[in-house]
């Protein structure tokens, strides 16, 4: 019998669920869970990644499962779009699961068993979201994903802050889920239960108003999951609260399922009809990107910093999607394909380097017990492996050539550069401004990452824990090495990746990006005269020039080297406290963008013997948007509670009155 990609993918989901249950059953032997189940889960991930790649070039498969509602069995579909995101899920989770095998070793058995179940359910849920082909299954998978990740976030539920973060996450996830559900309802258009399949929605031609409504609801719902402004507040709370491998999955992969959702609904189901959808997403994306990176620059907690950086990257992705929609609507499909390629490439890249950085913070957390960067420093000496691998991630996320972050940034900027000539002159002018904002946020990202890496790994240890830190274990190194390797490979072989992404562009836009040059080493998205980039040559040239320099210097001069104390500038009492802390490093940004932050700081008086400085930069949106909503909700519920008196007769009266009213109307 013929095995199709979709069969393998469903098998993978099933395997993950079984592995999770096995983990629960084996909770008395935590060592087995760590050294057998997690690595096996990782292998399954790899299988999924291979399946995803396979599905990219295969024709879409459909499967109907004998489960689900009576009139609406579960529909599965594996097309190139799903395949791409499955590959992303598989590739990133392979590294993360390997890492988790080492990371969770120290955990107690019962907790670990439960965690293993939730972890694999989470993975299965994400895969199912990508495969679902009807609204019902999609929502079931979406909720599985949300709930299992909620439980994962609240693993350390004894800490009140973590409970609070989890609650916030759950709340926003559900507000979003309701919006998605409503969006599906609008798209279904009241045509009976069978119309809840995506296939029916694809062919239902909605009127302009209803399709815009559906789009807005979907954007809101998926945006809430992705952390798009102003629904981002849960992200910097929940990501730091979760155990690091889980943060890695949430940030690297789960946010991408929301991107998948936006792409699926906008292009596949609603056929991207209206130009202002694109402009709306573009604007929201720009705001989100700048907001995220600005806040990342002032964080002191390393995981919060990464969470804000994820917000920035989601913003960039949304910009890419917005650009794609705009171009597509105006019939510039070659450009649309270019920006879609940039978007998908960037989601893949972000999955790799953000997972790498998040799991890296896990190792640091284990080694030092600290999340506050201000108490770290000098870890490059005690954790050489983590430091070296994290350097790859840091360079990649800052968009440095020849790593992967640069390629997607390059593609996105090319899309901007090629864009003039749109019929609407306002949009035409928005494009260069948007390019400028993208460039600004990319440059700020480099600032953030220098701060992140410099304060954590370089300099002198700022606390005892940092001085005595130990390096990561073998499993952890393996997981991180895989992710770092992906960052390098995705950076070096862009032509291959673009070829794979072309299948998705073909599906969504009906066109694809031609590589004008015949060589696999030279990326030329438009034509050779216009732009080209070859990371391999670039890397070879840098390495060649560097080695030549080393050789010449050592050959004609000498390589003598000696160590001495650092220059103290005539001030012998230099100590580790004189280095910049995380707050210090971010201070210029805080000063420049002061109006955007809500800053509370206590400055000590100059005569204080034990001076203490405290500064907090908070999100104004929380105060301007969320607290009023909360107050309003409280007020409303206060009114509702007036109805509640505790008298049973009164309740019976309510029921009676309702019944009568209903009878009158019916």
């Amino acid at each position, binding site marked *: 019998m013929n095995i199709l990609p979709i069969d393998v993918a469903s098998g993978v989901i099933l395997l993950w669920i079984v592995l999770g249950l096995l983990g629960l059953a084996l909770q008395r032997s935590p060592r087995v869970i760590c050294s057998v189940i997690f690595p096996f889960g990782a292998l399954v991930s790899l299988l999924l990644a291979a399946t995803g790649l396979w599905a990219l070039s295969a024709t879409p498969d459909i499967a109907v499962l004998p489960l689900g509602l009576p009139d609406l069995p579960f529909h599965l579909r594996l097309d190139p779009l799903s395949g791409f995101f499955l590959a992303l899920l598989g590739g990133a989770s392979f590294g993360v699961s390997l890492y988790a095998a080492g990371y969770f070793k120290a955990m107690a058995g019962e907790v670990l068993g439960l965690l293993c179940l939730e972890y694999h359910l989470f993975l299965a849920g994400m895969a199912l979201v990508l495969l679902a082909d009807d609204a019902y299954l999609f929502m079931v998978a979406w909720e599985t994903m949300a709930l299992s990740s909620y439980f994962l976030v609240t693993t350390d539920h004894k800490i009140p802050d973590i409970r609070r973060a989890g609650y916030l996450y759950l709340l926003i996830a559900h507000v979003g889920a309701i919006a998605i559900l409503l969006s599906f309802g609008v798209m279904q258009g009241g045509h009976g239960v069978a119309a809840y399949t995506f296939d029916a929605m694809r062919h239902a031609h909605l009127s302009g108003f209803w399709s815009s409504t559906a789009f807005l609801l979907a954007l809101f719902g998926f945006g809430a999951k992705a952390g798009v402004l102003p629904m981002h507040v849960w992200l910097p709370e929940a990501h730091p609260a979760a155990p690091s491998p889980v943060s890695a999955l949430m940030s690297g992969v789960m946010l991408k399922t929301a991107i998948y959702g936006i792409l699926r609904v906008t292009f596949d189901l609603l056929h991207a009809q209206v130009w202002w959808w694109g402009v709306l997403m573009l604007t929201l994306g720009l705001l989100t990107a700048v907001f995220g990176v600005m806040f990342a620059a002032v964080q002191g907690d390393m995981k919060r910093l990464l969470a804000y950086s994820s917000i920035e990257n989601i913003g960039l992705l949304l910009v890419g999607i917005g650009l794609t929609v705009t171009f597509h609507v105006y019939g510039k499909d070659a450009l649309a394909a270019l920006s879609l390629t940039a978007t998908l490439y960037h989601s893949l890249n972000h999955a790799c380097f953000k997972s790498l950085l998040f799991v890296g913070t896990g190792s640091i957390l284990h080694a030092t017990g600290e999340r506050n960067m201000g108490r770290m420093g000098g870890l490059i000496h005690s954790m050489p492996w983590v430091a070296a691998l994290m350097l790859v991630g840091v360079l990649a996320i800052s968009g440095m050539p020849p790593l992967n972050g640069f390629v997607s940034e390059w593609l996105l900027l090319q899309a901007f550069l090629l864009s003039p000539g749109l019929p609407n*002159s*306002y949009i035409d*002018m*928005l494009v260069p*401004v948007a390019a400028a904002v993208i460039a600004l946020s990319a440059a700020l990202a480099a600032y953030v990452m220098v701060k992140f890496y410099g304060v954590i790994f370089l300099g002198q240890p700022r606390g005892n824990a940092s001085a005595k830190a130990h390096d990561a274990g073998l499993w952890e190194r393996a997981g991180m090495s895989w992710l770092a390797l992906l960052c390098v490979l995705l950076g070096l072989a862009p032509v291959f990746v673009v070829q794979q992404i072309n299948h998705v562009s073909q599906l969504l836009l009906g066109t694809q990006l031609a590589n004008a040059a015949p060589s696999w080493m030279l990326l030329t998205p438009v034509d050779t005269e216009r732009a080209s980039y070859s990371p391999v040559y670039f890397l070879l040239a840098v390495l060649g020039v560097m080695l030549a320099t080393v050789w010449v210097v050592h050959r004609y001069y000498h390589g003598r080297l000696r160590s001495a104390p650092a220059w103290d500038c005539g001030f012998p009492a230099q100590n580790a406290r004189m280095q910049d802390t995380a707050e210090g490093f971010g201070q210029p940004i805080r000063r420049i963008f002061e109006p955007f932050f809500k800053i509370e700081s206590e400055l000590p008086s100059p005569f204080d013997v034990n001076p203490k400085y405290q500064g907090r930069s908070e999100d104004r949106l929380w105060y301007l948007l969320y607290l009023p909503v909360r107050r309003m909700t409280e007020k409303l519920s206060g009114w509702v509670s007036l109805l509640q008196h505790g008298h049973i007769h009164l309740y019976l009266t309510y029921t009676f009155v309702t019944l009568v009213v209903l009878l009158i109307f019916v």
Partner: protein
Amino acid sequence: MQIPLPLQFVNLLASLLLLVVFAMLAQRRILSLINLFALQGVILSLSTFVVAYSTAQHHLYYSAWLTLILKVLVLPWLLHRLIARLNVKWDVETLINIPTTMLVGIALVIFSFNLAAPISQLSQGITRGLIGIALASVLLSLLMMLTRRKAISQVVAFLSLENSLFFAATSATQGMPLVVEFGIALDVLVATYIFGIFFFQIRETFDSLDISHMENLKDDNA
């Protein structure tokens, strides 16, 4: 499509005009503000010369000379004398900080470019894009008037507004009748004189040129 060289030159001067307006918007010192204003006059008279040359309209030469004498020499000299006598070389205090002003400025530029796009398409060849720049300069000058505290910088802003309008007139409609231009030139001159007298009056009354003091002039019972 190759644009004729004189028009390219006018385009370049138009952009320089916008650049100078932006520089004025970002400028903190009154002295430099006046120098920038003089520079604006130079650009203006140059562009008038170029338009006069390319369209062979002789009266534009007169108006170019008029601009050069009045806006590059007389008015800056008057203003210099004024600030020397008032002793106000200090920094301009802005109501909104400068980066924000610049951002608003960029938004205004986009707005006016788009606003002018249909007008540019109506008029023939020569003025494509110039109206947008002139309109942007007008709006930016207005913005400068809004954001400045000191009376002198407001007057400079007003004069720059007049310059932008003048630029629009020469480049878009190839100049107004000479009589009208003479009239406007006279008006501007007189206005500057009157403003000068006002400055002395304001300073005598309030001991300062900060126009926020004028808020006290309103009826207290209101």
